């Protein structure tokens, strides 16, 4: 999830509301459109229909300028939907699956991060900082991780654009490929959800692909991806420390300002909201009716978010990704994806 830029010009709340409202209305119209199309296309999940509708609006009709500000709010809806998903899970289930999820996430993220770093620097001779951005984006949580790490290592703007475009390209491809592979191989829901959660890149596509497979796969995918997202703070601070030390010398205090505050700044806060709702749901406060309503609410929020996600996939932008970054991420992604699927299938299949 991106942050507010400090450089943004100050704007009156009423002006901002007026600038955002048309885009949010467009998201809502497209979301209802996707929902109405769902019964006509029983083979395709409604969330993928929403992504395709958003993609069509942005690439076929060109996203109108008046809608751009509002459409950007889809990240707020995605985070809110993830928080509300906590109502469908219980502490027991989290404790039961916690060690498993955390160990899978740490192993796969670590292997991906090291794999992309080594592949970039040794095989393709890519610039160190671009390599680190690619490694963070593919091992943790896509563009959010790239932005967080870019800030902490003072990466150049064009490297951020290269890395982000590469990750977005893979988001678009995996969004289409994973559901097909899942159905062809008849992967069980829990394995599919965890596989998507540990190996795909950005949160939105992971959740979309999970729910496109099944409700259970969607919950596993989200749970696994959330666990992975929590590593963003550690990775950003780790990189900041590494580059600061390299710049200033190992015995200088280049990392002295990196502490809890920096960790928290980069931590995805909606994970805390998600955990809070899991605790609330487990305490027995919520009735079955409440849970049903909250599930419906997060389904609507996901629809809004995925229409917005579709609008972010721009063919013109994807063409700008350089060949070397794409090859690096492709090599590592294929290896990690296949290995994690085999291991998860062997453990839980």
């Amino acid at each position: 999830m991106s942050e507010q830029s400090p450089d943004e010009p100050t704007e009156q709340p009423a002006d901002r509301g007026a600038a955002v409202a048309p885009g949010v209305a467009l998201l809502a119209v497209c979301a209802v459109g996707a929902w109405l199309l769902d019964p006509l296309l029983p083979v395709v999940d409604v969330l993928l229909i929403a992504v395709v509708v958003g993609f069509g609006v942005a690439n076929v009709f060109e996203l109108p300028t008046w809608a751009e500000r509002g459409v950007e709010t889809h990240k707020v809806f995605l985070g809110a939907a993830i928080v509300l998903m906590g109502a469908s899970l219980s502490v027991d289930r989290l404790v039961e699956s916690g060690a498993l999820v955390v160990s899978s996430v740490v192993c796969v993220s670590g292997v991906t991060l090291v794999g992309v770093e080594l592949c970039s620097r040794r095989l393709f001779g890519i610039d160190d900082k671009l390599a680190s951005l690619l490694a963070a984006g593919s091992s943790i949580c896509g563009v959010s991780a790239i932005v967080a790490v870019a800030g902490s290592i003072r990466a150049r703007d064009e490297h951020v654009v290269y890395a982000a475009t590469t990750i977005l390209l893979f988001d678009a491809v995996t969004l289409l490929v994973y559901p097909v592979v899942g159905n062809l191989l008849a992967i069980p829901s829990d394995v599919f959800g965890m596989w998507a959660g540990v190996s795909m890149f950005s949160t939105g596509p992971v959740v979309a692909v999970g729910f496109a497979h099944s409700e259970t796969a969607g919950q596993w995918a989200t749970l696994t991806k959330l666990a992975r997202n929590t590593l963003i703070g550690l990775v950003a601070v780790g990189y900041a420390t590494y580059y600061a030390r390299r710049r200033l010398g190992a015995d200088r205090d280049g990392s002295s300002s990196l502490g809890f505050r920096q960790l928290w700044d980069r931590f995805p806060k909606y994970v805390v909201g998600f955990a809070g709702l899991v605790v609330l749901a487990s305490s027995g406060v919520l009735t079955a009716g409440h849970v049903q309503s909250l599930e419906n609410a997060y389904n609507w929020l996901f629809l809004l978010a995925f229409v917005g996600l579709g609008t972010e996939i721009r063919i013109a932008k994807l063409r700008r990704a350089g060949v070397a970054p794409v090859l690096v991420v492709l090599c590592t992604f294929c290896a990690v994806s296949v290995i994690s699927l085999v291991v998860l299938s062997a453990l839980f299949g």
Partner: protein
Amino acid sequence: MREFARVADTIRGVASPFARRWVALETDYKSVTVACVLVGLVVGFGVQVPW
């Protein structure tokens, strides 16, 4: 008409600080706030969300 303008001014006066804070909020905090409002509506006020 003047009464209406006065009421509108009052509402704007009350809402403005909240709106300003909302605009300055980070995306993640906005997400959590939206979710909390929805939980409040569903659990506190018994609002039912259809699908």
